[in-house]
């Protein structure tokens, strides 16, 4: 066992590497290469998840070597610390069902000639992400980061005939590389100050001080914030996530964004020394903003995958809000509060991965069955796809933060941290906590509205299109992963104590935190009922709910009570799919109430041929303003293009000019060298 754990990570990466090569070589046999890519991916993910579980359970890190170049004596090492293990476990937990789902899904949804490329890119993406989580130094980290980014870009561009996909992939690449640029700059500054490239040395927290620290924080915050999809660095996410094949979208939304979160934890919160109060404020405000705007945008989407992508931004915001609260606590030296907040944040990383993976896979099945992503074209799918519908419902309940599913405990803990924060920070700064809590409450209530809409319009009442009325349930291999994730949602909702306990070792390993053992046993003045998230009580409340269900069923399904089926009353007319309430109408009141955020534009055209009094057709078009794209990125983009135009003068294509540049440069360099020696 110990031996296997020691070689688990390199072995998993070797399997992935072999699988990528094999997949590309077997490109002609779509079936074989699907299994070569995805089977190997399942095996490797299971291995890394095993290693991660071992580290979490034992609380001690596992170190080792990935690659060694003897001649130059350069070594790439890895280290599975409890924090990396947590993210690695989340990755494994999602990657296995996603890969299993993909074995059937790719066969139906990806063109045969592309199977090999998609399979190989998927494996490379997961492998790159694993390297990111376990990397022990800057070089390995950045290599993994880049492999992951490029593989993801390739997956986003799977359907590269469509202009939208190409644009999404391009946008993703540009944004990612702006982020990577910030990371490289930050890491190089740290490395040159510390004289080392290894993480333990550069992230010890004593490397830099003074204003330099703030500059580094900003660089890393942008660099990792782009990957985490935090507003205002989110613009690529709602384009890129929906463009990829659905199972890949599931992985991207559930796990890939956690690469950014991991970086924020590792570097911004715990790698640059005791956090500054202003950093915590940045985290809290960006987190709250992402949460509230993410869910508001999600509410108005009619493309199911875009809707889910925006909700990813929301959850990324909730995670950052928790981390921000933790940083605020660390800045004031409140280790108990910091522990609760970090636990809340890490718990939400896990929970979000589970329910978002579930929802995206469910959406993928629906999209495959109907051939469209437009919610208004679904409807009535509960009858055609009962199992997919049931799993999607579980995911919808979980993401709305409702009790007895896994979304609730982490939101509960976040609220608890915010309440604690109010009473344990001094001065006016504490008012940020109730403000954030009120906005978090608004977010979760809006999320409930959003998912009542997403589920209800898609799965209930009449089919709204021909395709929806002919949809078929997905094959068993696609249902099993859905069922697994749905079961996890329920299990972790009923027994959140398990997760809290697993987090003990993780929080204990972070500097400045108290091990959460005290937390689990209820050492908190404010919330003495943290013990309640032990295993008994939520389960007991579950029994109370079950009792209520039994009573209500007994009241309405008594024997001798004959049920009559009748058509829905249609006010004297006949009800058709066209008279159903639409998704657009459902979110209209909120669109009007939050008009200041959406700034909707609306265009109604009445088409009349004979006379304006006899209208044949009314065309309605509504659009919300893309605020960030228009007002933030628009000017930046124009500036960049203008600068490029200006630089064109330098690159005029004249050989003489180029020779002159070389000469000038050489002279300057000589003068500079002469000056220094």
């Amino acid at each position, binding site marked *: 066992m110990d031996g296997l754990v020691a070689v688990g990570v390199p072995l998993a990466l070797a399997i992935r590497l072999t699988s990528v090569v094999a997949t590309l070589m077997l490109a002609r046999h779509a079936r074989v290469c699907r299994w070569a890519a995805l089977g190997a991916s399942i095996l490797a993910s299971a291995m890394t998840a095993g290693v991660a579980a071992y580290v979490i359970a034992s609380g001690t890190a596992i170190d080792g070597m990935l690659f060694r170049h003897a001649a130059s004596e350069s070594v790439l090492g890895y280290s599975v610390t409890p924090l990396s293990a947590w993210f690695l476990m989340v990755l494994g937990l999602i990657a296995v069902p996603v890969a299993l789902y993909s074995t059937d899904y790719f066969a139906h949804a990806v063109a045969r000639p592309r199977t090999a490329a998609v399979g190989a890119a998927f494996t490379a993406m997961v492998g790159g992400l694993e390297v990111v989580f376990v990397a022990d130094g800057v070089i390995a980290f950045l290599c993994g980061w880049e492999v992951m980014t490029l593989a993801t870009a390739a997956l986003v561009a799977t359907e590269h005939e469509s202009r939208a996909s190409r644009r999404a992939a391009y946008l993703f690449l540009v944004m990612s590389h702006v982020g990577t640029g910030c990371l490289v700059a930050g890491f190089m500054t740290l490395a040159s100050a510390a004289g080392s490239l290894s993480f333990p040395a550069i992230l010890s927290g004593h490397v830099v001080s003074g204003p330099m620290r703030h500059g580094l924080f900003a660089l890393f915050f942008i660099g990792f914030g782009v990957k985490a999809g935090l507003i205002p660095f989110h613009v690529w996410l709602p384009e890129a996530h929906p463009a990829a094949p659905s199972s890949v979208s599931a992985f991207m939304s559930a796990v890939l964004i956690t690469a950014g979160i991991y970086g924020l934890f590792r570097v911004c919160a715990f790698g640059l020394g005791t956090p500054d109060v202003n950093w915590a404020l940045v985290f809290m405000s960006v987190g709250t903003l992402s949460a509230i705007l993410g869910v508001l945008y999600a509410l108005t989407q009619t493309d199911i995958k875009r809707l889910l992508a925006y909700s990813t931004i929301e959850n990324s915001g909730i995670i950052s809000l928790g981390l921000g609260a933790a940083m605020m606590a660390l800045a004031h030296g409140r280790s108990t509060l910091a522990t609760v907040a970090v636990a809340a944040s890490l718990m939400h990383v896990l929970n979000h991965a589970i329910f978002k993976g579930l929802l995206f896979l469910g959406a993928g099945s629906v999209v495959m069955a109907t051939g469209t992503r437009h919610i208004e074209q679904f409807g009535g799918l*509960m009858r055609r796809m009962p199992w997919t519908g049931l799993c999607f419902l579980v995911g919808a*309940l979980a993401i*709305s*933060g*409702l*009790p007895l599913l896994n979304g*609730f405990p982490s939101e*509960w803990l976040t*609220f*608890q941290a915010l*309440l604690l924060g*109010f009473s344990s920070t001094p001065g006016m700064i504490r008012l940020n906590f*109730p403000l954030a809590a*009120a906005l978090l*409450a*608004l977010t979760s209530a809006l999320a*409930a*509205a959003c998912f*009542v809409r997403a589920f*209800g319009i898609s799965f*209930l*009442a*009449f089919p709204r299109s021909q395709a929806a009325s002919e949809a078929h349930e997905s094959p068993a291999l696609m249902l099993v992963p859905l069922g697994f994730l749905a079961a996890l949602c329920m299990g972790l909702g009923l027994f959140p104590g398990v997760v809290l306990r697993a987090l003990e070792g993780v929080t204990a390993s972070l500097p400045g935190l108290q091990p959460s053992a005290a937390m689990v046993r209820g050492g908190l*003045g*404010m919330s003495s*009922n943290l*013990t*309640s*998230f032990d295993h*008994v009580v939520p389960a007991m*409340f579950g029994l*109370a*709910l*079950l*009792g*209520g269900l039994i*009573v*209500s069923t007994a009241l*309405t399904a008594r024997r001798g*009570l*004959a049920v*009559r*089926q*009748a*058509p*829905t*009353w*249609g006010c004297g007319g006949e009800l058709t*799919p066209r*008279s*159903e*309430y*639409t998704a657009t*109408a459902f*979110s*209209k*009141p*909120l669109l*009007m*109430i939050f008009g200041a955020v959406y700034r909707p534009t609306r265009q109604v055209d009445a088409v009349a041929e004979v006379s304006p009094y006899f209208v044949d057709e009314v065309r309605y078009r509504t659009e919300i303003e893309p605020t960030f794209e228009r007002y933030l990125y628009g000017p930046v983009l124009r500036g960049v293009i203008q600068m490029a135009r200006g630089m064109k003068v330098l690159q005029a294509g004249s050989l003489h000019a180029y020779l002159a540049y070389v000469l000038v440069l050489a002279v300057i360099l000589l003068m500079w060298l002469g000056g220094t020696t």
Partner: protein
Amino acid sequence: MTPMQDALLAAGAALLQAGGLLAAAPLLKTVIKKMKARLQNRQGPPLLQGYYDLAKLLRKEPVRSEVASWIYVAGPRMYFAAALAATTLVPVAFAAAPLEAAGGILLLVGTLALGRFALATAALDTGSPFGGMGASRDMTIAALAEPALMLGLFASALAAGSMNLGVLVRTLVQEGVTLHPADILAFAGLFMIVIAETGRIPVDNPATHLELTMIHEAMVLEYAGPDLALVEWASAVKELLYLTLLVDLFMPVGIATSAAPAAVLVAIVAWVGKVFVLAIAVTVVESTNAKLRLFRVPELVSISLGLGFLALAIRFL
């Protein structure tokens, strides 16, 4: 006591409390109706009318839509179950709730949200535009009310230093009632939210069936017979729960801290009296206000939000 005995005791108390609130809830609805009628110089229904209605509905033949799936049937059941489970989280006669340790105020809010989610989803299942309209409006108002509710609860929870309702009430009883200005502001804010959450005028009109104005009623328009009985009953329980919550947070006087029969008797009488006073307040508000336009509700809610924030600021700055 052993943990086993503890659990049994909690289960027994939960059953008792759920049964008691379930039995009392229809009376509250009728009492408010009756008082409203009196204010309008009408006779009003007999006091037991709520029970007669429920008995009649429960005996009727259920008529269900052909279009709908099992979600339509499950919706009211879940709504009812959520309301019933929520009764175990609120202290009524004792300064302790049977399952108080399960998650406190947040769990209470979450459980009621679960019921709402179930009912709103089920409303979309019949294909009738009324259901969709009701669900959309109900979720909208709930979303707006949530932050104000949370802030109001925060303001009162912070005074006692716990989100656990049992601990909260015990602390308040120990410290005695202080008419701190913050309490009054928080109470006013929460009262407005309770009005909004229970579908009363000026936010929603429980007596209307006019297409353009109904919210909750539109959502449950398609239900009949026992299904409708569940919805009506659960709504009544929910209203009673909200009023009890207000009583607990702001006037816990008289609540029993021991199991002595005399104390319990006093506590029950006190609880009935306090809820009755709140019911009068609800009636007066209903009778003296006109229903607001849907798009004016945000203003009402933002006043409540402001009051909650002010309460926090006054108490802690």
